[in-house]
């Protein structure tokens, strides 16, 4: 077990180093900091001196070392556009993105689990056929088209919910701008989180159904039936528990997709979160912000992935074997 944890942590560190190398390379290769700092009248000689002082003539590795030291202490450079530390700008937008992601995950959980379970328990029932057909079609509709349709139907035609922005937010704990506590904020949250949830839902419905059907075939479920346990008890207490294991791993894998999808959703709904900020930074060639985004999101991503793997390793011992590739 210790070896498993160590190996997983080593892998996480390795990935973080690659991410930081990439984001350092962006910051290093794009634009000349000296030109950003001094005016037109400064002579070449003074510029060279400044270059030396800033350490821009050092080798790539020693520059990277300095960058990494700064990054560990939370210094990721200063955004060109906002004139503020890049990390602060990003952390400012973090609540918006997290709230969006969590509401989407919440919707997925409360819709996908009942649908998947129902489709597994009664595979021939018309409702489960409908669920399967809809989720097959849903799998083929890209997220941005889902979002566009939602905007068209609910915002333009029916005028039920606003299609852009975050609406009114309240400040809790002094740092967290939350849209959960006002009616306006919740209305703004509705469409983006629904778009995100609908785009990710079909994968989970299909997965839960497939896993549940497999579990229902197994011996211990037949034993539970023969003991005369009630149907809800068997389905929800015995079968669903074992179904959720693989679902959690796939959920971990989908974390990357979720990041990509939040970028798309936030762009469409102009949701003031990190993804929207990232696309803005790309368009403005605000390199410190781009590289800071990579490090922050990469960090969150690596931590969640490692945690999911570790939890999975705790619950399911076979994963810990060396041959877990397949």
């Amino acid at each position, binding site marked *: 077990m210790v070896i498993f944890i160590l190996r997983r942590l080593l892998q996480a560190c390795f990935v973080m180093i690659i991410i930081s190398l990439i984001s350092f390379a962006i910051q290093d290769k794009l634009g000349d900091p000296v030109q950003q700092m001094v005016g037109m009248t400064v002579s070449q000689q003074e510029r060279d001196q400044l270059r030396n002082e800033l350490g821009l003539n050092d080798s790539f590795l020693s520059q990277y070392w300095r960058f990494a030291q700064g990054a560990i202490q939370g210094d990721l450079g200063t955004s060109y556009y906002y004139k503020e530390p890049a990390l602060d700008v990003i952390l400012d937008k973090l609540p918006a993105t997290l709230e969006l992601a969590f509401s989407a995950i919440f919707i997925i959980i409360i819709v996908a689990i009942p649908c998947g379970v129902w489709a597994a328990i009664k595979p021939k029932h018309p409702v489960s056929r409908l669920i399967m057909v809809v989720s097959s079609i849903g799998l083929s509709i890209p997220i*941005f088209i889902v979002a*566009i349709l939602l905007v068209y139907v609910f915002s333009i035609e029916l005028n039920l919910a606003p299609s852009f922005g975050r609406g009114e937010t309240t400040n809790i704990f002094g740092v967290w701008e939350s849209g959960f506590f006002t009616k306006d904020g919740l209305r703004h949250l509705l469409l983006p989180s629904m778009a995100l949830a609908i785009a990710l839902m079909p994968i989970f419905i299909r997965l839960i159904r497939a896993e549940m059907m497999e579990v229902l075939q197994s011996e211990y479920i037949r034993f539970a039936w023969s003991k005369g346990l009630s149907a809800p008890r068997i389905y929800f207490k015995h079968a669903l528990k074992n179904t959720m294991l693989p679902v959690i791993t796939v959920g971990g894998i989908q974390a990357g997709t979720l990041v990509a999808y939040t970028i798309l959703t936030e762009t469409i709904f102009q949701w003031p979160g990190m993804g929207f900020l990232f696309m803005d930074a790309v368009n403005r060639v605000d390199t410190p912000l781009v590289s800071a985004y990579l490090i922050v999101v990469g960090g969150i991503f690596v931590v969640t992935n490692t945690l999911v793997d570790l939890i999975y390793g705790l619950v399911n011992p076979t994963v810990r074997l060396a041959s877990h590739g397949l």
Partner: protein
Amino acid sequence: MKYPKKDLIQPMSGSRWQHIWSGFVGDKLAVMALIIFAFYCIVALLAPLVAPYDVKDPAFMDLMNAEIAPMWISGDPRFLFGTDAQGRDLLSVILYGTRLSLTIGLCAVLIQATLGICIGLAAGYLGGRIDNFLMRCADIQLSFSNMMVAIVFLAIFQSLFGVAMYQQLAMVMLILVIGLTEWPLFARTIRASVLAERQKEYVDAARVMGLSSKRIMFRHILPNTLSPVLVIFTVQIANAIVAEAALSFLGLGMPATEPSLGSLISAGFAYMFAGSWWICVLPSMTLIILILVMNLLGDWLRDHLNPRTYKD
């Protein structure tokens, strides 16, 4: 030596494919999917001949014709699907866009498959440290979704080259980025079947004959591991097309002057609020039907070739 081998193998493989084909004809949904997919391919191939207008003609863009509704609404017989904001005939633009999307999808998946097959073969056949290392890389690559990696890298390239320069390179960049990010799926599938094939006697026989590992891998093992690849191939093309569309939608893909389906939808989105829904909806429908059909074909292939694919 050659005769009995031919006698033994030829009829068997023939009847297997015949069996699959007869099963296919019996399935109405699959046949319909294949027909629609074939229609897409033919139309995409013949786009220059089929399209009512020549997109390269400078007179093609005419602001006088901007935002005309489709024929069944406006009654204008010149433009079957209406026109977009620049006065381009939507049907011609969609035809060329489909052609571009399919080309990018196919090329990207060819890169994925080549890379994945080579890595999977090497990992499965050589085993040991190499296998461990390659599969670790695959794990890491797989945990980052390809969409996320593609968005990040294309964004970096775009700020690196500048927008004007980037737009000229867009197609190559899209193919490369989508192609290089999704190899693990192929590699894992191939590796799994190589591990099974490696135990068989014909591989031992080939090794005893003193053939090189390269020859055994590519000439003996590879042909026996190809049917699972076929399944992933169709689904992956669909995924690549979706990825391309999403990237173009974000403005990181094909430019508006040379639009793929994604950039058409992106351009149309702005006019959605102004009431010109067809600029956005018609390309979207084209894209959805294409992806749906390819997924249906992939599902059907998966059920009937029944490979031990990596569970996704």
